[in-house]
Structures are given as structure tokens and as C-alpha cells.
């Protein structure tokens, strides 16, 4: 399954002092496996979780998730 957006969660974690997946998961209120699935682009999070991730990095939603459209 390819999602119509890419994400910069891994990159944002790196620039947030190598924040661990578990630390991000705790902040967002999901499991570490869910963060992992989001990073790999396997799982499309709800809008609420997407916002929570952006807030965890103190940034805007569009800085973390970028819409690229459906692959032809």
C-alpha cells in the first residue's frame, strides 16, 4: 500500500536530539509500533494523531506530513 503522502517523522526525531520512537509514542499516546508503521509509510494515522506528532515536534502538520498525491 502506498500512501498519498510522505512523512518526515524520522528526520524530525533526529533533529529533536535523536528522540526515540518510544518517547514520541509516549508524547502522542500511541504504541511504538504505530510510530514505526507511520515512519515506514505503512500506516495512515488519524488527523488527531498527525496533529499530535506535529505538536510533539513543535511544528506544523505540513512540516511533518507532505501530500504528494496518488501514484499513477
Amino acid at each position, binding site marked *: *500500500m502506498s500512501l498519498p503522502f510522505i512523512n518526515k517523522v524520522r528526520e524530525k526525531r533526529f533533529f529533536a536530539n535523536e528522540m526515540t520512537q518510544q518517547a514520541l509514542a509516549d508524547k502522542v*499516546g*500511541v*504504541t*511504538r*509500533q*504505530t510510530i*514505526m*508503521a507511520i515512519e*515506514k509509510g*505503512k*500506516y*495512515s*494515522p*488519524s488527523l*488527531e*494523531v498527525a496533529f499530535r506528532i506535529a505538536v510533539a515536534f513543535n511544528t506544523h502538520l505540513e512540516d511533518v506530513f507532505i501530500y504528494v498525491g496518488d501514484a499513477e
Partner: protein
Amino acid sequence: MDMSFKEKSAWISLFSTVLIFGYYFYSVFQLSDLPVEQAKEVAKGLLIRAIVLSVIVEIIFHGMLAATNHKAAEMGADERDKLFEYRGNNFGYSILVIGVLFTLGRIITLEYNPQWNEHSSSLQIPLLTAHILMFSFILSEVARFAGQIYYYRRGY
């Protein structure tokens, strides 16, 4: 294998259900050799034993899982867990509906054609209708857990 708390829980439920009720149904099929009254008593005992064992195994293993994953157990299901649970439930429900419709069809068919009941002597298991319903229910449970695990392994 990197598994979430809920996936581990689904594996425990799948294994315990398959093993306990697999043995139960295997034992029920052996009852056709016994006299009807005796077979009824044995079947009742087998069912009670399977249910009690299933509850005990679930409590012990889920207790152990929760004790070793305290934080995850307290957090409960997140949105991805809930999505996979919902999809698994849908899958299990479909199996259950098929089982119930099959049982209904069997009851109605035998009501209008009682002679078929006498001819189907190969399966002289007491409370056969109850066992078919029970089998459908257990199969739907297995499908539910297997479905959840499938989505967890697939990742989305």
C-alpha cells in the same frame, strides 16, 4: 519479532483457542462410538472443561503478559490496535453468520425431511446442532484473532 502488547495478546488468544477447542472438537468426534446417554454426559463434561480451561489459560497468560508489559497494558489500545481489532471482528463475524445460517438451514431441512436425519448415521453425535453452533463460534473467534494478527504482520 517486534510486537505490540495487543498483538501478543491476539497470539495468546489464538493459540489457546486453537489448542483447547481443537482438542475439544477432536474428543467430540470420538463420541459417536459411545451410547447416546453416556455420550451426552461426556460431551457436557468436555464442554465445561474446555470453557473453564480456556478462561484459566487466558487469565494466566494475559496476566503474565500484563505483568511483563506494565506500561503497555495500562495504555490499552491505540487507534491502530482498534482498527485491526475492528477488521478482525468483521472477519470473525462473517464466519459466525455463515455458521448460523448453515445451522438454520440444517434444522429447517431436517424438519421437512426427517428421513434424512435417520440416514445420516455417520455422525451420531449427541447435541450435534449445539456442537455445530459451538464450532462456528470457535471458528469465528479463530478467524478474528488470525485476522488481527494478519493485519499486524502486514503493518496496515
